[in-house]
């Protein structure tokens, strides 16, 4: 590689020590070996340590409070990454700043997305600013069930959220019919012993008995569909990776959960971290993968703590590492934190982010099953998808497939927020209607009169009261022209200023577009601007923008960036010119 040109700035001792602790120390069992070269494009991709860029930037931001020029030079020197590229990566993420904050205090991130907006986010921000606290407005923080959501980015101290100590808002907790949430609030999430005592690691034993082909056949027969939003059949994905040439193969957990209104993965992982680890291990066994990676959104400090502890306990007990559970199977899992970018939940953007590049989605094809992380065959799944695998193996595919409907098997997690009496995470068999869920959550509050539900998240759509009868199945949603997305049910009564909510959703997409492709980079900006047009938004032009974003954008963000806005216009939630 050509020599790296570094400017004159040098890291402080504290900055250098923090960075070295991450990139210099033992790199952990799951990290790439030097022989694994990342040949995708040219030189930059051949740098086998580049994937440590994001952890190194985290360490610098945490210690210095910003990505200082000296600190960045130290990272670039150590990892042999050109500074312009590292700067380009750092400026991609909301949790990194490249200007000196001029203080050494923690930063309070306050959510301004709809559930928190209608619960008084503006007042919380004003109060914190009045106290002189450094405040950063944030998109949805994944705590919509307990608005107004906050996240404290620590300066030299661990990150935390003020609500970390609160019990999980899972109103059905303890109900014996629960499948995915059965341990939540019941079993100690910090103890491997407790996990095993509650049936943990029996599914892995069953997987070893079934063999790789048997596990994949069970998954296919279960008709499990991905819960990350795209509803892709999981068995098909695993088989494709198992059959794909090339090694090592990877299992990636997409725990970047940033779809506004979504908090299911956070509650699941805070309260049942071992279940994820067991399921990832099974995925590794079934597909012949050597490594697992959990890409966790940066604003989930409690999940990071629980998973870190759980990984260490699993490793110590022989459930990770060499010859797992005395089998001949070797596998380990590495935890990586995102840094504030919704787009990194898009699977190929996630790979780029993990590899130390800007979180820009890749053009597909090729698909992750053949060209995923480090250009190798990769299974990428949502944590909820993986949680289902355990029950499928334990009960058998037939029992599992009998739950729910013909086209949507099993149970589904729904994130209830907004104006409902009991916001929180709910698990129901597929087939319940939207109205059933709103009732389960205690009905509409505020004025008590339902105005609209945001179904599926910001990338989903608004439905009016007439939509309460829609069955929440993949096929039912499709027939109604909506999407379940990530299971968001955000409820608005008729006292809410819907124009403000819709405007904010447009702002969200403008802020979260990666900026790579023209239709989305400019389209999301124009959509947001036009919503503020003095005579109301021009519906015709918004439709033209939508069509171009849907047809010509690279990824799902652009494809869905206008869906909620246009559904709001169609429902009359906001006025508009034709």
């Amino acid at each position, binding site marked *: 590689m050509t020599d790296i040109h570094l400017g004159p700035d040098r890291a402080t001792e504290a900055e250098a020590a923090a960075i070295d602790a991450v990139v210099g120390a033992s790199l952990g069992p799951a990290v790439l070996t030097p022989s694994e070269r990342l040949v995708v494009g040219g030189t930059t991709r051949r740098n086998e340590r580049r994937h440590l860029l994001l952890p190194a930037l985290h360490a610098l931001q945490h210690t210095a409070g910003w990505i200082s020029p000296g600190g960045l030079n130290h990272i670039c020197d150590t990892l042999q990454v050109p500074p312009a590229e590292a700067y380009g990566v750092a400026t991609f993420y909301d949790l990194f700043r490249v200007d000196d904050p001029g203080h050494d205090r923690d930063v309070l991130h306050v959510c301004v997305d709809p559930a928190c907006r209608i619960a008084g986010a503006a007042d919380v921000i004003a109060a914190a600013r009045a106290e002189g606290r450094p405040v950063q407005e944030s998109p949805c923080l994944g705590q919509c069930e307990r608005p107004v959501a906050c996240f404290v980015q620590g300066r030299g101290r661990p990150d935390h959220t003020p609500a970390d100590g609160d019990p999980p808002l899972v109103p059905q907790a303890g109900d014996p019919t629960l499948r995915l949430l059965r341990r939540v609030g019941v079993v100690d999430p910090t103890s491997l012993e407790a996990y095993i005592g509650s049936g943990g690691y029996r599914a892995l034993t069953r997987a070893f008995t079934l063999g790789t082909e048997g596990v994949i056949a069970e998954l296919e027969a279960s008709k499990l569909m991905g819960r990350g939003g795209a509803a892709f059949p999981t068995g098909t994905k695993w088989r494709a990776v198992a059959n794909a040439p090339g090694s090592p193969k990877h299992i990636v957990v997409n725990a970047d959960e940033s779809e506004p209104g979504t908090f299911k993965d956070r509650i699941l992982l805070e309260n049942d971290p071992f279940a994820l680890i067991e399921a990832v291990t099974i995925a590794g066994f079934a597909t012949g993968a050597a490594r697992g990676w959990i890409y966790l959104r940066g604003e989930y400090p409690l999940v990071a703590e629980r998973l870190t502890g759980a990984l260490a306990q699993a490793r110590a007990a022989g459930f990770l590492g060499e010859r797992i559970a005395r089998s001949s199977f070797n596998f380990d899992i590495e935890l990586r934190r995102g840094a504030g970018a919704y787009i990194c939940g898009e699977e190929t953007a996630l790979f780029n982010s993990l590899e130390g590049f800007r979180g820009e989605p890749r053009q597909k094809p090729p698909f992750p099953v053949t060209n995923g992380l480090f250009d190798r065959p990769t299974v990428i799944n949502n944590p909820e998808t993986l949680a289902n695998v355990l029950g499928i193996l334990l009960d058998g595919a037939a029992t599992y497939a009998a739950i729910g409907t013909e086209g949507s098997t099993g149970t589904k997690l729904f994130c209830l927020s907004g104006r409902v009496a009991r916001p929180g995470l709910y698990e129901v068999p597929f087939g319940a209607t939207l109205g059933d869920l709103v009732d389960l959550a205690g009905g509409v509050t505020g004025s008590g009169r339902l105005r609209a539900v945001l179904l599926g998240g910001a990338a989903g759509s608004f439905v009016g009261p007439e939509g309460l009868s829609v069955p929440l199945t993949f096929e039912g949603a499709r027939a109604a022209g909506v999407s379940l997305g990530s299971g968001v049910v955000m409820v608005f009564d008729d006292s809410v200023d819907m124009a403000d909510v819709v405007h904010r959703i447009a702002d969200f997409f403008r802020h979260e577009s990666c900026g790579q492709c023209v239709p989305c980079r400019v389209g999301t900006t124009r959509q947001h601007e036009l919503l503020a047009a003095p005579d109301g938004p021009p519906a015709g032009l918004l439709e033209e923008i939508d069509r171009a974003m849907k047809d*010509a954008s690279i990824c799902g963000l652009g494809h869905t960036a206008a869906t909620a806005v246009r559904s709001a216009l169609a429902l009359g939630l906001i006025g508009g010119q034709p």
Partner: protein
Amino acid sequence: MSETPVTITVDGQPVQVPAGSTVLDACTAAGVDTPTICYAPNLTPVNVCRVCVVELEGSRTLVPSCSRRAEAGMAVQTDSERVRHSRKMVLEFLGSAVELDQAPQLDPWMARYGADPGRYGPAPATMDEPLRVQDDLYIRDYDRCVLCYKCVEACGDDAQHTFAIAVAGRGFGARIRTEFDTALPESACVYCGNCVAVCPTNALQFKTEFDLRQAANWRPEEHSVTRTVCSYCGVGCNLELHVQDERIVKVTSPSDHEVTNGHLCIKGRFGWAYVHGGADSDQT
């Protein structure tokens, strides 16, 4: 890669192209003019501008012809209503956000697709960047930048391997930057000018051109172009000397030249001042 040529259908006409060709190659072979902005034959396709999209039978979305490999049996439409609409919107979006008056190659496409960049209200957000004149060799006017990534590729993996510039920021705020926006002379830039050569909109301009434009004396239609071989070393790079009023005003290299692929080094690109003698002969 298989050696068998591939046959695909472009607007109903079968076209045969060599294996490994793109859909764009097939369109060109079929005699169809396809607009492109971020594509260049001497750079890896980044497929970001999306002006080259075509409708591929069986695909939910349109596909970028510049990067999509032609596969046997594909059928594409290049002038359907969907294609025309997306191309129009891409051109309109760029026209509404970026200064394009020195990118005349876009004008016929704007006209063909009926792009009207003026319909986004009185004050749509624009690039809104200061002019960067930091040395005597080239200037950067990012008000004209369409973020095609070409300069980044030319500076990095595809030619120079210097990585002095990259895309920074996100979304509409994305910009081409050195680290911390460091001035070019303090950055890793080696002044090969390969970024300038690939920029489609004159956001990157040789200082000679910039100065002549400032003086309202840039007359490209009168330029004579002389092809020669660079005399600095033995590699044999072909140079194209663009001459106005008997002075060299710009040096390029043909992108299909087997030695350079269109890319040069500082000596070939800027080392011609000695030709004119005088005070500026030691400027490199």
